């Protein structure tokens, strides 16, 4: 998927993630409303 880099003011793509149970979920389905989205580096 080629997308433009998300900058302040741009609209983020509706990314698809996997939940801890392995289900696929779109960002829009994870929460209806404002989101603090934190991309972490290697979990420890």
């Amino acid at each position, binding site marked *: 998927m080629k997308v433009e880099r*998300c900058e302040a003011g741009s609209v*983020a793509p509706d*990314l698809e993630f*996997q939940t801890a149970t392995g289900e696929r979920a779109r960002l829009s389905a994870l929460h209806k409303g*404002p*989101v*603090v989205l934190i*991309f972490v580096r*290697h979990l420890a």
Partner: protein
Amino acid sequence: MRARYDEIRALGGEVIVVSFEPASRLSMYIEDHGWPWQVVADPERAGYAAFGLTSATWGAMLRPRVMVKFIQLLRRGLKLRRPSPHVDVLQLGGDFVLDGDRRVVFAHRSTDPADRPPVEALTTALRKLAGSGPAPTSAPPASERPAAT
């Protein structure tokens, strides 16, 4: 972040943590840390790419402030786990605030593992969305703010 989580929820927000570890490993980390928020996997790092998150150099990883932060985390009981095979241990993270239409209202891309915005920057952005107070669109330089946890 944990101390401000109730405030974030009260502002209508939710915290979603994205990891590039496989989904099968997430439960272990969630249990270790007792995180109350959602943690999801992005093993192909499509989200990392979309948000312009790059990999650090080893030089950045070994900066003194990164070492200090690492020692602080160890003292707080950080459990060290070997990363999954083939993951990029140099991948950097970032913090973003999106409104309900996924419009980015705050963006911070880490320049090293210790470079995190203050939680106040995130809650201020949420507060602006909720209709009160000005919102920053990025955090001040790391040298001008305390390290976030």
